[in-house]
Protein backbone atom coordinates (compact mmCIF):
# COMPACT_ATOMS: atom_id res chain seq x y z
CA UNK A 1 0.00 0.00 0.00
CA UNK A 2 2.66 2.49 0.98
CA UNK A 3 4.56 1.78 -2.16
CA UNK A 4 1.49 2.61 -4.25
CA UNK A 5 1.16 5.94 -2.47
CA UNK A 6 4.74 6.75 -3.21
CA UNK A 7 4.29 5.83 -6.81
CA UNK A 8 1.30 8.03 -7.34
CA UNK A 9 2.75 11.08 -5.58
CA UNK A 10 5.36 12.18 -8.13
CA UNK A 11 2.86 12.49 -10.92
CA UNK A 12 0.47 14.73 -9.06
CA UNK A 13 2.76 16.99 -7.05
CA UNK A 14 5.46 19.42 -8.11
CA UNK A 15 7.20 19.59 -4.80
CA UNK A 16 10.81 20.84 -4.78
CA UNK A 17 11.81 17.71 -2.97
CA UNK A 18 10.42 15.75 -5.93
CA UNK A 19 13.74 14.49 -7.20
CA UNK A 20 14.89 13.49 -3.72
CA UNK A 21 11.70 11.55 -3.24
CA UNK A 22 12.15 9.87 -6.57
CA UNK A 23 15.67 8.83 -5.70
CA UNK A 24 14.51 7.42 -2.43
CA UNK A 25 11.71 5.62 -4.20
CA UNK A 26 13.98 4.11 -6.78
CA UNK A 27 16.32 2.90 -4.06
CA UNK A 28 13.47 1.26 -2.28
CA UNK A 29 12.23 -0.48 -5.43
CA UNK A 30 15.68 -1.79 -6.02
CA UNK A 31 15.99 -3.04 -2.49
CA UNK A 32 12.67 -4.80 -2.74
CA UNK A 33 13.47 -6.44 -6.02
CA UNK A 34 16.82 -7.57 -4.66
CA UNK A 35 15.13 -9.06 -1.69
CA UNK A 36 12.59 -10.74 -3.88
CA UNK A 37 15.22 -12.13 -6.13
CA UNK A 38 17.35 -13.45 -3.34
CA UNK A 39 14.32 -15.09 -1.75
CA UNK A 40 13.12 -16.73 -4.91
CA UNK A 41 16.54 -18.02 -5.86
CA UNK A 42 18.10 -18.90 -2.56
CA UNK A 43 15.41 -20.93 -0.90
CA UNK A 44 14.63 -23.56 -3.47
CA UNK A 45 18.34 -23.85 -4.00
CA UNK A 46 19.00 -24.66 -0.37
CA UNK A 47 16.09 -27.03 -0.20
CA UNK A 48 17.04 -28.88 -3.33
CA UNK A 49 20.59 -28.94 -1.99
CA UNK A 50 19.54 -30.75 1.17
CA UNK A 51 17.29 -33.05 -0.82
CA UNK A 52 19.98 -34.00 -3.25
CA UNK A 53 22.56 -34.49 -0.52
CA UNK A 54 20.11 -36.73 1.29
CA UNK A 55 19.39 -38.65 -1.88
CA UNK A 56 23.06 -39.19 -2.57
CA UNK A 57 23.62 -40.42 0.98
CA UNK A 58 20.61 -42.65 0.66
CA UNK A 59 21.62 -44.20 -2.65
CA UNK A 60 25.21 -44.60 -1.45
CA UNK A 61 24.21 -46.74 1.51
CA UNK A 62 21.58 -48.51 -0.54
CA UNK A 63 24.24 -49.49 -3.08
CA UNK A 64 26.57 -50.75 -0.40
CA UNK A 65 23.78 -52.86 1.13
CA UNK A 66 22.90 -54.29 -2.26
CA UNK A 67 26.47 -55.16 -3.11
CA UNK A 68 26.93 -56.91 0.26
CA UNK A 69 23.75 -58.86 -0.31
CA UNK A 70 24.76 -60.01 -3.75
CA UNK A 71 28.18 -61.00 -2.42
CA UNK A 72 26.50 -63.08 0.31
CA UNK A 73 24.27 -64.65 -2.24
CA UNK A 74 27.19 -65.69 -4.43
CA UNK A 75 29.16 -67.24 -1.61
CA UNK A 76 29.90 -70.83 -2.54
CA UNK A 77 28.57 -73.38 -0.07
CA UNK A 78 26.70 -70.94 2.17
CA UNK A 79 25.56 -73.51 4.73
CA UNK A 80 28.99 -74.19 6.10
CA UNK A 81 30.16 -70.59 6.24
CA UNK A 82 29.78 -69.27 9.80
CA UNK A 83 30.58 -65.64 8.95
CA UNK A 84 27.42 -65.19 6.92
CA UNK A 85 25.00 -64.85 9.79
CA UNK A 86 26.73 -61.89 11.49
CA UNK A 87 27.12 -60.34 8.07
CA UNK A 88 23.40 -60.61 7.46
CA UNK A 89 22.76 -59.11 10.88
CA UNK A 90 24.96 -56.18 9.91
CA UNK A 91 23.02 -55.70 6.72
CA UNK A 92 19.67 -55.56 8.49
CA UNK A 93 21.16 -53.15 10.99
CA UNK A 94 22.25 -50.79 8.22
CA UNK A 95 18.79 -51.10 6.67
CA UNK A 96 17.19 -49.94 9.86
CA UNK A 97 19.69 -47.07 10.00
CA UNK A 98 18.63 -46.18 6.49
CA UNK A 99 15.01 -46.21 7.59
CA UNK A 100 15.87 -43.92 10.45
CA UNK A 101 17.63 -41.54 8.06
CA UNK A 102 14.47 -41.32 5.98
CA UNK A 103 12.37 -40.69 9.08
CA UNK A 104 14.66 -37.91 10.24
CA UNK A 105 14.56 -36.18 6.88
CA UNK A 106 10.91 -36.73 6.19
CA UNK A 107 10.00 -33.15 7.07
CA UNK A 108 12.28 -31.51 4.55
CA UNK A 109 11.77 -34.04 1.76
CA UNK A 110 9.15 -33.90 -0.95
CA UNK A 111 6.52 -36.53 -0.28
CA UNK A 112 7.35 -38.36 -3.48
CA UNK A 113 10.93 -38.88 -2.32
CA UNK A 114 9.78 -40.07 1.10
CA UNK A 115 7.52 -42.62 -0.51
CA UNK A 116 10.09 -43.95 -2.93
CA UNK A 117 12.72 -44.14 -0.18
CA UNK A 118 10.42 -46.04 2.12
CA UNK A 119 9.54 -48.35 -0.74
CA UNK A 120 13.23 -48.97 -1.36
CA UNK A 121 13.75 -49.75 2.33
CA UNK A 122 10.83 -52.19 2.32
CA UNK A 123 12.21 -53.88 -0.80
CA UNK A 124 15.63 -54.19 0.78
CA UNK A 125 14.10 -55.79 3.88
CA UNK A 126 12.36 -58.30 1.72
CA UNK A 127 15.54 -59.13 -0.15
CA UNK A 128 17.39 -59.65 3.13
CA UNK A 129 14.70 -62.01 4.31
CA UNK A 130 14.90 -63.89 1.04
CA UNK A 131 18.66 -64.16 1.24
CA UNK A 132 18.48 -65.23 4.88
CA UNK A 133 16.05 -67.98 3.93
CA UNK A 134 18.29 -69.17 1.10
CA UNK A 135 21.51 -69.03 3.05
CA UNK A 136 20.40 -70.15 6.51
CA UNK A 137 17.37 -72.34 5.84
CA UNK A 138 17.67 -74.43 8.98
CA UNK A 139 17.01 -71.58 11.40
CA UNK A 140 13.25 -71.99 11.82
CA UNK A 141 13.47 -75.74 11.99
CA UNK A 142 15.92 -75.73 14.88
CA UNK A 143 13.54 -73.59 16.93
CA UNK A 144 10.66 -76.03 16.45
CA UNK A 145 12.86 -78.95 17.22
CA UNK A 146 13.89 -77.38 20.50
CA UNK A 147 10.37 -76.71 21.66
CA UNK A 148 9.13 -80.23 21.04
CA UNK A 149 12.04 -81.56 23.01
CA UNK A 150 11.03 -79.29 25.85
CA UNK A 151 7.48 -80.53 26.02
CA UNK A 152 8.52 -84.15 26.13
CA UNK A 153 10.90 -83.62 29.02
CA UNK A 154 8.25 -81.62 30.76
CA UNK A 155 5.74 -84.44 30.43
CA UNK A 156 8.26 -86.83 31.89
CA UNK A 157 8.59 -84.49 34.83
CA UNK A 158 4.88 -84.54 35.43
CA UNK A 159 4.68 -88.28 35.25
CA UNK A 160 7.47 -89.06 37.62
CA UNK A 161 7.77 -86.26 40.08
CA UNK A 162 5.63 -86.03 43.16
CA UNK A 163 6.47 -82.83 44.91
CA UNK A 164 5.70 -82.01 48.48
CA UNK A 165 5.10 -78.48 49.59
CA UNK A 166 8.80 -77.62 49.86
CA UNK A 167 10.25 -75.87 46.89
CA UNK A 168 12.62 -77.92 44.88
CA UNK A 169 15.15 -77.39 42.13
CA UNK A 170 13.93 -78.64 38.82
CA UNK A 171 16.31 -78.79 35.92
CA UNK A 172 14.46 -76.70 33.46
CA UNK A 173 14.31 -77.92 29.90
CA UNK A 174 17.75 -77.02 28.47
CA UNK A 175 17.28 -73.35 29.24
CA UNK A 176 20.66 -72.97 30.80
CA UNK A 177 19.32 -71.98 34.21
CA UNK A 178 17.42 -73.70 36.97
CA UNK A 179 13.84 -72.88 37.70
CA UNK A 180 13.00 -72.97 41.35
CA UNK A 181 9.59 -74.55 41.11
CA UNK A 182 6.74 -72.87 42.92
CA UNK A 183 5.72 -74.41 46.23
CA UNK A 184 2.62 -76.54 46.01
CA UNK A 185 0.90 -79.92 46.20
CA UNK A 186 1.39 -82.02 43.08
CA UNK A 187 0.34 -85.50 42.06
CA UNK A 188 -1.29 -86.63 45.32
CA UNK A 189 -4.19 -89.07 45.57
CA UNK A 190 -6.76 -89.58 48.32
CA UNK A 191 -4.96 -87.49 50.93
CA UNK A 192 -5.70 -84.60 53.22
CA UNK A 193 -3.19 -81.88 52.34
CA UNK A 194 -2.79 -79.09 54.88
CA UNK A 195 -0.61 -76.01 54.62
CA UNK A 196 -0.55 -73.06 56.95
CA UNK A 197 1.06 -69.87 55.73
CA UNK A 198 2.48 -68.41 58.84
CA UNK A 199 2.94 -64.94 57.47
CA UNK A 200 1.77 -63.31 60.67
CA UNK A 201 5.18 -63.92 62.17
CA UNK A 202 6.53 -63.16 58.65
CA UNK A 203 9.05 -66.00 58.76
CA UNK A 204 7.80 -66.95 55.34
CA UNK A 205 7.09 -64.48 52.60
CA UNK A 206 3.67 -64.28 51.07
CA UNK A 207 4.02 -65.93 47.69
CA UNK A 208 2.37 -68.08 45.05
CA UNK A 209 1.13 -71.65 45.55
CA UNK A 210 0.33 -74.47 43.13
CA UNK A 211 -2.23 -77.29 43.28
CA UNK A 212 -1.66 -79.64 40.40
CA UNK A 213 -2.70 -83.16 39.34
CA UNK A 214 -4.64 -84.07 42.49
CA UNK A 215 -7.30 -86.75 42.71
CA UNK A 216 -9.67 -87.40 45.59
CA UNK A 217 -7.84 -85.03 47.93
CA UNK A 218 -8.92 -82.51 50.50
CA UNK A 219 -6.75 -79.40 50.47
CA UNK A 220 -6.71 -76.87 53.31
CA UNK A 221 -4.68 -73.69 52.88
CA UNK A 222 -4.71 -71.26 55.82
CA UNK A 223 -3.21 -67.79 55.91
CA UNK A 224 -2.66 -65.29 53.12
CA UNK A 225 -1.08 -66.11 49.79
CA UNK A 226 -0.29 -63.89 46.85
CA UNK A 227 -1.47 -66.05 43.95
CA UNK A 228 -2.91 -69.54 43.51
CA UNK A 229 -2.60 -71.74 40.44
CA UNK A 230 -4.91 -74.76 40.23
CA UNK A 231 -4.47 -77.32 37.46
CA UNK A 232 -6.01 -80.74 36.76
CA UNK A 233 -8.01 -81.59 39.86
CA UNK A 234 -10.52 -84.43 40.00
CA UNK A 235 -12.93 -85.11 42.84
CA UNK A 236 -11.22 -82.77 45.31
CA UNK A 237 -12.32 -80.43 48.06
CA UNK A 238 -10.27 -77.26 48.16
CA UNK A 239 -10.54 -74.84 51.09
CA UNK A 240 -8.43 -71.72 50.71
CA UNK A 241 -7.84 -68.67 52.88
CA UNK A 242 -7.52 -65.19 51.37
CA UNK A 243 -5.58 -64.85 48.10
CA UNK A 244 -4.24 -61.35 47.78
CA UNK A 245 -3.78 -61.48 44.02
CA UNK A 246 -5.51 -63.83 41.62
CA UNK A 247 -6.64 -67.44 41.40
CA UNK A 248 -6.30 -69.30 38.12
CA UNK A 249 -8.11 -72.61 37.74
CA UNK A 250 -7.57 -74.91 34.75
CA UNK A 251 -9.29 -78.28 34.31
CA UNK A 252 -11.28 -79.28 37.36
CA UNK A 253 -13.90 -81.98 37.53
CA UNK A 254 -16.35 -82.90 40.33
CA UNK A 255 -14.67 -80.56 42.82
CA UNK A 256 -15.73 -78.19 45.57
CA UNK A 257 -13.78 -74.96 45.88
CA UNK A 258 -14.07 -72.50 48.73
CA UNK A 259 -11.89 -69.47 48.15
CA UNK A 260 -11.57 -65.72 48.68
CA UNK A 261 -9.57 -63.68 46.21
CA UNK A 262 -9.26 -60.42 44.32
CA UNK A 263 -9.65 -62.12 40.95
CA UNK A 264 -10.83 -65.59 39.98
CA UNK A 265 -10.57 -67.14 36.52
CA UNK A 266 -12.06 -70.59 35.95
CA UNK A 267 -11.20 -72.54 32.79
CA UNK A 268 -12.43 -75.97 31.70
CA UNK A 269 -14.28 -76.80 34.91
CA UNK A 270 -17.00 -79.45 34.81
CA UNK A 271 -19.55 -80.16 37.53
CA UNK A 272 -17.89 -78.09 40.25
CA UNK A 273 -19.26 -75.98 43.09
CA UNK A 274 -17.56 -72.68 43.96
CA UNK A 275 -18.04 -70.88 47.26
CA UNK A 276 -16.47 -67.52 46.54
CA UNK A 277 -15.74 -64.10 47.90
CA UNK A 278 -14.27 -61.94 45.12
CA UNK A 279 -13.40 -58.26 44.83
CA UNK A 280 -14.09 -58.34 41.07
CA UNK A 281 -16.32 -60.41 38.82
CA UNK A 282 -15.37 -64.09 38.62
CA UNK A 283 -15.16 -65.49 35.09
CA UNK A 284 -15.63 -68.92 33.56
CA UNK A 285 -14.47 -70.13 30.15
CA UNK A 286 -15.01 -73.53 28.49
CA UNK A 287 -16.85 -74.71 31.59
CA UNK A 288 -20.21 -76.25 32.28
CA UNK A 289 -22.26 -77.50 35.18
CA UNK A 290 -20.56 -75.06 37.57
CA UNK A 291 -22.51 -73.59 40.47
CA UNK A 292 -21.78 -70.63 42.70
CA UNK A 293 -22.46 -69.75 46.34
CA UNK A 294 -21.05 -67.31 48.91
CA UNK A 295 -17.81 -68.01 50.83
CA UNK A 296 -18.29 -69.64 54.23
CA UNK A 297 -14.88 -70.87 55.36
CA UNK A 298 -13.79 -70.74 59.00
CA UNK A 299 -10.48 -71.25 60.77
CA UNK A 300 -8.84 -69.57 63.72
CA UNK A 301 -7.85 -66.07 62.68
CA UNK A 302 -9.56 -66.04 59.29
CA UNK A 303 -11.29 -62.74 60.03
CA UNK A 304 -7.95 -61.01 60.53
CA UNK A 305 -6.47 -62.63 57.41
CA UNK A 306 -9.45 -61.53 55.35
CA UNK A 307 -9.16 -57.97 56.68
CA UNK A 308 -5.47 -57.91 55.83
CA UNK A 309 -6.13 -59.06 52.28
CA UNK A 310 -8.82 -56.42 51.85
CA UNK A 311 -11.44 -59.16 51.65
CA UNK A 312 -13.13 -58.47 54.96
CA UNK A 313 -16.51 -57.67 53.49
CA UNK A 314 -18.86 -59.68 51.34
CA UNK A 315 -19.02 -58.00 47.94
CA UNK A 316 -21.84 -60.03 46.46
CA UNK A 317 -19.70 -60.61 43.37
CA UNK A 318 -19.86 -64.39 43.80
CA UNK A 319 -23.02 -64.32 41.70
CA UNK A 320 -21.80 -61.81 39.07
CA UNK A 321 -20.20 -64.44 36.89
CA UNK A 322 -19.02 -63.61 33.36
CA UNK A 323 -19.03 -66.54 30.95
CA UNK A 324 -16.60 -65.88 28.10
CA UNK A 325 -18.29 -68.59 26.09
CA UNK A 326 -21.70 -66.99 26.43
CA UNK A 327 -21.58 -63.35 25.39
CA UNK A 328 -25.32 -62.70 25.42
CA UNK A 329 -27.71 -60.89 27.66
CA UNK A 330 -29.61 -64.01 28.71
CA UNK A 331 -28.31 -66.23 31.51
CA UNK A 332 -25.56 -68.63 30.45
CA UNK A 333 -26.54 -72.32 30.54
CA UNK A 334 -23.03 -73.17 31.74
CA UNK A 335 -23.38 -71.91 35.30
CA UNK A 336 -26.04 -71.40 37.93
CA UNK A 337 -26.50 -70.27 41.49
CA UNK A 338 -26.28 -73.14 43.95
CA UNK A 339 -29.73 -73.55 45.55
CA UNK A 340 -29.61 -72.62 49.24
CA UNK A 341 -30.85 -75.99 50.44
CA UNK A 342 -27.97 -77.74 48.68
CA UNK A 343 -25.25 -75.46 50.04
CA UNK A 344 -22.72 -76.54 52.65
CA UNK A 345 -22.89 -74.78 55.97
CA UNK A 346 -19.84 -73.04 57.39
CA UNK A 347 -16.78 -75.25 56.97
CA UNK A 348 -14.26 -75.10 59.80
CA UNK A 349 -10.82 -76.34 58.81
CA UNK A 350 -8.86 -75.35 61.92
CA UNK A 351 -9.59 -78.68 63.61
CA UNK A 352 -7.86 -81.82 62.42
CA UNK A 353 -10.97 -83.42 60.97
CA UNK A 354 -12.89 -80.91 59.00
CA UNK A 355 -16.23 -80.39 60.61
CA UNK A 356 -18.90 -79.79 58.07
CA UNK A 357 -22.01 -78.64 59.82
CA UNK A 358 -25.26 -78.72 57.98
Amino acid at each position, binding site marked *: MEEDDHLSKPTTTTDPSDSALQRKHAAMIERLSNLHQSRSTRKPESESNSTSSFLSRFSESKNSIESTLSRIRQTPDPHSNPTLKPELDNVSLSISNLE*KLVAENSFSLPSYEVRTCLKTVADLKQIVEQVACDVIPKKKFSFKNKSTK*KTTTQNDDLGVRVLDNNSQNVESRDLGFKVLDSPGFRGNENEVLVKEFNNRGSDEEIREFVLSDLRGCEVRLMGNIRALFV*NKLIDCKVYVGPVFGSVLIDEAKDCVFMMASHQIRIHQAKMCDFYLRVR*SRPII*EDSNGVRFAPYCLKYDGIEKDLEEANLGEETGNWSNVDDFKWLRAVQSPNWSILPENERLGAVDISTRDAKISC
Partner: protein
Amino acid sequence: MGLLSIIRKIKRKEKEMRILMVGLDNSGKTTIVLKINGEDTSVISPTLGFNIKTITYQKYTLNIWDVGGQKTIRSYWRNYFEQTDGLVWVVDSSDLRRLDDCRYELHNLLKEERLSGASLLIFANKQDIQGALSPDEIAKVLNLEAMDNSRHWRIVGCSAYTGDGLLDGFDWLVQDIASRIYMLD
Protein backbone atom coordinates in the same frame (compact mmCIF):
# COMPACT_ATOMS: atom_id res chain seq x y z
CA MET B 1 7.94 -20.51 4.08
CA GLY B 2 4.67 -19.96 5.94
CA LEU B 3 3.12 -23.22 4.83
CA LEU B 4 6.05 -25.34 5.91
CA SER B 5 6.04 -23.94 9.41
CA ILE B 6 2.29 -24.52 9.71
CA ILE B 7 2.69 -28.13 8.64
CA ARG B 8 5.48 -28.59 11.15
CA LYS B 9 3.33 -27.16 13.90
CA ILE B 10 0.44 -29.50 13.10
CA LYS B 11 2.73 -32.50 13.06
CA ARG B 12 4.20 -31.51 16.42
CA LYS B 13 0.77 -31.09 17.89
CA GLU B 14 -0.33 -34.54 16.80
CA LYS B 15 2.31 -36.38 18.72
CA GLU B 16 0.02 -39.32 19.13
CA MET B 17 1.07 -42.90 19.54
CA ARG B 18 -1.09 -45.98 19.40
CA ILE B 19 -0.08 -48.66 21.85
CA LEU B 20 -1.53 -52.17 21.99
CA MET B 21 -1.38 -54.15 25.25
CA VAL B 22 -1.62 -57.91 24.82
CA GLY B 23 -0.66 -61.08 26.66
CA LEU B 24 -2.27 -64.12 28.26
CA ASP B 25 -5.14 -63.70 30.70
CA ASN B 26 -4.11 -62.99 34.29
CA SER B 27 -0.86 -61.31 33.19
CA GLY B 28 -1.84 -57.89 34.56
CA LYS B 29 -2.45 -55.77 31.46
CA THR B 30 -5.33 -53.74 32.86
CA THR B 31 -3.58 -53.30 36.19
CA ILE B 32 -0.52 -51.88 34.41
CA VAL B 33 -2.58 -49.40 32.45
CA LEU B 34 -4.53 -48.23 35.49
CA LYS B 35 -1.41 -48.05 37.65
CA ILE B 36 0.49 -45.95 35.15
CA ASN B 37 -2.50 -43.64 34.92
CA GLY B 38 -2.58 -43.32 38.71
CA GLU B 39 -5.95 -45.01 39.16
CA ASP B 40 -7.23 -47.42 41.79
CA THR B 41 -6.10 -50.98 41.06
CA SER B 42 -7.84 -52.80 43.91
CA VAL B 43 -10.94 -53.89 42.01
CA ILE B 44 -10.25 -55.05 38.46
CA SER B 45 -12.41 -57.67 36.77
CA PRO B 46 -10.98 -59.83 33.99
CA THR B 47 -11.35 -57.81 30.80
CA LEU B 48 -14.33 -58.83 28.70
CA GLY B 49 -13.62 -56.98 25.46
CA PHE B 50 -11.20 -54.05 25.66
CA ASN B 51 -10.47 -50.74 27.35
CA ILE B 52 -9.01 -47.60 25.76
CA LYS B 53 -7.06 -45.05 27.78
CA THR B 54 -5.66 -41.82 26.48
CA ILE B 55 -2.69 -40.74 28.54
CA THR B 56 -0.42 -37.74 28.16
CA TYR B 57 3.06 -39.06 28.62
CA GLN B 58 6.01 -36.67 28.45
CA LYS B 59 5.07 -34.55 25.42
CA TYR B 60 3.21 -37.33 23.64
CA THR B 61 -0.37 -38.52 23.69
CA LEU B 62 -0.62 -42.26 24.13
CA ASN B 63 -3.73 -44.09 23.03
CA ILE B 64 -3.47 -47.34 24.93
CA TRP B 65 -5.63 -50.26 23.78
CA ASP B 66 -5.88 -52.82 26.53
CA VAL B 67 -7.36 -55.99 25.03
CA GLY B 68 -8.66 -58.94 27.07
CA GLY B 69 -6.38 -62.00 27.11
CA GLN B 70 -8.81 -64.86 27.75
CA LYS B 71 -8.39 -67.68 25.25
CA THR B 72 -11.85 -67.16 23.73
CA ILE B 73 -11.14 -63.56 22.79
CA ARG B 74 -7.50 -63.84 21.70
CA SER B 75 -8.64 -64.36 18.13
CA TYR B 76 -10.05 -60.83 18.20
CA TRP B 77 -6.64 -59.30 18.90
CA ARG B 78 -6.04 -58.93 15.19
CA ASN B 79 -8.87 -56.41 14.95
CA TYR B 80 -6.65 -54.00 16.84
CA PHE B 81 -3.39 -54.40 14.89
CA GLU B 82 -3.87 -51.60 12.36
CA GLN B 83 -1.72 -48.48 12.89
CA THR B 84 -0.07 -49.84 16.02
CA ASP B 85 3.13 -47.96 16.88
CA GLY B 86 4.02 -49.87 20.02
CA LEU B 87 3.25 -53.37 21.21
CA VAL B 88 3.34 -54.21 24.91
CA TRP B 89 3.45 -57.93 25.67
CA VAL B 90 2.74 -58.65 29.34
CA VAL B 91 3.95 -61.86 30.99
CA ASP B 92 2.95 -63.25 34.38
CA SER B 93 6.47 -64.20 35.48
CA SER B 94 5.11 -66.37 38.30
CA ASP B 95 2.90 -68.55 36.06
CA LEU B 96 5.57 -71.09 35.13
CA ARG B 97 3.15 -73.64 33.78
CA ARG B 98 1.81 -71.44 31.01
CA LEU B 99 5.10 -69.97 29.77
CA ASP B 100 4.96 -72.35 26.80
CA ASP B 101 1.53 -70.97 25.88
CA CYS B 102 2.90 -67.52 26.36
CA ARG B 103 5.81 -68.11 23.98
CA TYR B 104 3.54 -69.67 21.39
CA GLU B 105 1.09 -66.76 21.42
CA LEU B 106 3.87 -64.17 21.29
CA HIS B 107 5.64 -65.71 18.31
CA ASN B 108 2.30 -66.14 16.61
CA LEU B 109 1.61 -62.45 17.09
CA LEU B 110 4.98 -61.39 15.76
CA LYS B 111 4.32 -63.14 12.45
CA GLU B 112 1.63 -60.54 11.82
CA GLU B 113 2.69 -58.22 9.04
CA ARG B 114 0.68 -55.26 10.32
CA LEU B 115 2.75 -55.30 13.50
CA SER B 116 6.10 -55.68 11.77
CA GLY B 117 7.08 -52.05 12.27
CA ALA B 118 5.90 -51.76 15.87
CA SER B 119 8.36 -51.45 18.75
CA LEU B 120 7.96 -54.34 21.17
CA LEU B 121 8.12 -53.90 24.94
CA ILE B 122 7.91 -57.08 27.02
CA PHE B 123 6.89 -56.58 30.61
CA ALA B 124 8.00 -59.44 32.89
CA ASN B 125 5.26 -58.60 35.37
CA LYS B 126 4.68 -59.71 38.96
CA GLN B 127 8.33 -59.43 39.97
CA ASP B 128 7.06 -58.73 43.51
CA ILE B 129 6.03 -62.39 43.81
CA GLN B 130 8.83 -64.43 45.35
CA GLY B 131 8.76 -67.29 42.84
CA ALA B 132 8.72 -65.09 39.73
CA LEU B 133 11.33 -65.64 37.01
CA SER B 134 13.70 -62.75 36.35
CA PRO B 135 13.46 -60.77 33.09
CA ASP B 136 16.59 -62.53 31.77
CA GLU B 137 15.07 -65.92 32.44
CA ILE B 138 11.79 -64.89 30.83
CA ALA B 139 13.75 -63.72 27.77
CA LYS B 140 15.31 -67.17 27.48
CA VAL B 141 12.06 -69.05 27.97
CA LEU B 142 10.29 -66.90 25.39
CA ASN B 143 13.22 -67.35 23.00
CA LEU B 144 13.38 -63.63 22.31
CA GLU B 145 16.80 -63.84 20.67
CA ALA B 146 15.18 -65.78 17.82
CA MET B 147 13.19 -62.73 16.81
CA ASP B 148 13.69 -61.02 13.48
CA ASN B 149 16.63 -58.67 14.02
CA SER B 150 14.97 -55.65 12.47
CA ARG B 151 12.55 -55.61 15.41
CA HIS B 152 13.11 -52.98 18.09
CA TRP B 153 12.46 -54.73 21.39
CA ARG B 154 13.27 -54.66 25.08
CA ILE B 155 12.28 -56.71 28.12
CA VAL B 156 11.68 -54.93 31.42
CA GLY B 157 10.89 -56.47 34.79
CA CYS B 158 8.03 -54.80 36.59
CA SER B 159 5.36 -55.09 39.21
CA ALA B 160 2.00 -53.58 38.39
CA TYR B 161 1.16 -54.06 42.05
CA THR B 162 3.95 -51.81 43.38
CA GLY B 163 4.47 -49.84 40.16
CA ASP B 164 8.19 -50.73 39.93
CA GLY B 165 9.60 -50.77 36.43
CA LEU B 166 6.49 -49.47 34.65
CA LEU B 167 7.96 -46.06 33.89
CA ASP B 168 11.29 -47.56 32.75
CA GLY B 169 9.39 -49.67 30.24
CA PHE B 170 7.16 -46.92 28.92
CA ASP B 171 10.08 -44.45 28.75
CA TRP B 172 11.94 -46.79 26.44
CA LEU B 173 8.86 -47.55 24.34
CA VAL B 174 7.91 -43.92 23.84
CA GLN B 175 11.49 -42.88 23.03
CA ASP B 176 11.88 -45.70 20.56
CA ILE B 177 8.63 -44.90 18.78
CA ALA B 178 9.45 -41.20 18.77
CA SER B 179 12.83 -41.71 17.17
CA ARG B 180 11.22 -43.80 14.46
CA ILE B 181 8.24 -41.66 13.68
CA TYR B 182 9.01 -38.09 14.56
CA MET B 183 11.94 -35.96 13.73
CA LEU B 184 14.36 -35.89 16.63
CA ASP B 185 14.05 -32.46 18.22
